[in-house]
């Protein structure tokens, strides 16, 4: 397994800050993401992870300060339709799906490649077919989005990023709402895009176990500040985790890789306090 750690810099944030209303959501966040890297952003609820991800896709949610360069160019200088050829946001599973067919939905992701007034061309259909084939989604090409299960819908979201032709994927909690089998399937799709196609992945997640198994690097946010940046193995230390989340979890070694994994303590209620009435 080769990981390109010396690829060129795709995303570079220098003292990036974001303030919504008067509340600072991100403070002085500085980091780099290189071509082909798989970076996970972790941190407690409300740490600013999703805001950071949106900033990377130029979804302005508040006052932005500091610098953010995408492919060496300031985020302000990008046209959104040009950025969309490079980066795709895979949002959290949306409960409000529209009654579009899967194929219609995927064709929408060809938007950045359409010229004004242009109708959808054969090459767009081709890209959509390929994206469906790569994600094993061909069987539900004709189904309607609002009849898909969460797992199937997430698969289609990945297919949409593929169809869009983006080489940087910004994933917002890709495995939330999925059972463990579907979690593994979705992450396998992401991992294969990362390794085979060289897609750069930036994933926000609460799932530390998966994050440390899949990623090249972990960024941890707490209260809008970057509190940890480093190799996956280094984040799985009780002290580091306490600094990020405010509580140290129970860690055991993964039986195959030896990577420390978080396991639930269990029985917390039974021993420490009365059950709530």
């Amino acid at each position: 397994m080769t990981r390109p750690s010396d690829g060129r810099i795709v995303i570079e944030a220098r003292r990036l800050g974001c303030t919504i209303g008067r509340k600072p959501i991100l403070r002085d966040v500085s980091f780099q993401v290189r071509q082909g890297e798989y970076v996970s952003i972790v941190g407690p609820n409300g740490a600013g992870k999703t805001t950071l991800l949106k900033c990377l896709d130029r979804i302005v949610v508040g006052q932005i300060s500091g610098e953010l360069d995408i492919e060496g160019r300031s985020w302000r200088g990008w046209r959104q339709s040009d950025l969309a050829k490079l980066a795709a946001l895979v949002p959290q599973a949306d409960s409000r799906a529209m009654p579009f067919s899967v194929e219609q939905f995927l064709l929408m992701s060809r938007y950045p490649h359409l010229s004004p007034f242009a109708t959808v061309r054969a090459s767009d259909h081709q890209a959509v077919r390929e994206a469906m084939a790569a994600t094993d989604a061909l069987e539900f090409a004709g189904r309607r989005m609002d009849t898909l299960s969460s797992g199937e819908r997430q698969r289609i979201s990945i297919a949409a990023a593929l169809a869009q032709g983006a080489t940087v994927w910004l994933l917002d909690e890709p495995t939330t709402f999925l059972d463990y089998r579907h979690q593994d399937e979705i992450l396998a799709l992401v991992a294969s895009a990362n390794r085979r196609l060289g897609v750069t992945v930036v994933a926000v997640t609460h799932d530390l176990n998966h994050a440390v198994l899949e990623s090249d690097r972990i960024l941890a946010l707490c209260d809008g500040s970057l509190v940890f940046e480093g190799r996956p193995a280094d984040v799985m230390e009780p002290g580091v985790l306490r600094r990020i989340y405010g509580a140290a979890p129970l860690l055991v070694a993964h039986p195959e890789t030896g990577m420390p994994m978080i396991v639930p303590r269990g029985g917390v209620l039974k021993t420490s306090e009365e059950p709530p009435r």
Partner: protein
Amino acid sequence: MNRWTIPVLFVVALAALAVAPFVGMEPIPLQSLWSRSGDGWSFDILWQLRIPRVVAAFLAGAALSTSGMAFQAMFRNPLATPFTLGVSSGASLGAAVCIQQQWIFLFWGVPSVTLAAFLGAVASIVVVYALTAGSRRGSSTATMLLAGVAVSFFFSSLILFLQYISDFTRSFRMLRWVMGGLEGVVTFGDVLTLTPFVVSGSLIVWYLTHELNLLCTGEEFAHSRGVDVRRTKLALFFAVSLMIGAVVSVCGPIGFVGLVAPHICRLLVGPDHRRLLSASWLFGGTMLVVCDTAARTVMAPTELPAGILTALLGGPFFLWLLLRRRDELGDL
């Protein structure tokens, strides 16, 4: 069925346009289309009254339906109508002021009430835009909706106030204007007034059908796919509002077409705006032609306001379609 829906709608629209001018209190022989033979009245009724009115009804219906479709997608709200942002209240206020002050004149062939109504519509557009553009979050959808609704209520209260202080005749004229109808359309003047607005507005919406698909799926999703969400929403807002301002100025606030015609078309052709737009345009136009023809015939010689008939005829039809095919409608 899907592939033939739009061609069928097209044929039905043509049929409605062809037949409607000949339906009415005064029977019109076919040859009046080209000759003044016989009494000569038929020729004038057909060319000066019926045909302009039918064409205006079609344009207005098409504009209302297209606008409703665009707003429902843009606000991701199935209850959005062309009037949601207060354009109709602005126009009604303009008309009410004009009626109250008894400013009755023609300006370049355009009646003063129409002109006042259009100015009112433009005023409401400017106010809603200023309220949303000034807000911290830019033209966020929620801000725009709330600003529109607030402006709408404010203007409606002013209309009620004007009605209250007016005498009986003027107050009734205001009320009648607010019901909406096409009885004011005589000669091709109004058609010429409407055409540039409806054509340019529809073209802008047509240009933005891909964007509408993406917007109704989600704003952030659309943004991530490369849509300039802010500019798209502003373009839609101005195009739709000006088109509706013109329509309301000529026909009054004819309700229900803009709410229900797009939903009927979603049931017929599905949610893809590239097809939905043609369907909405054709269906909305046809719907208003049919309603207006009914409005001037069912109680002849008395004319009903078309605004009453749109809901009376369209409501049951929509419910029937909804009960049959509600599973296909989804959320929008």
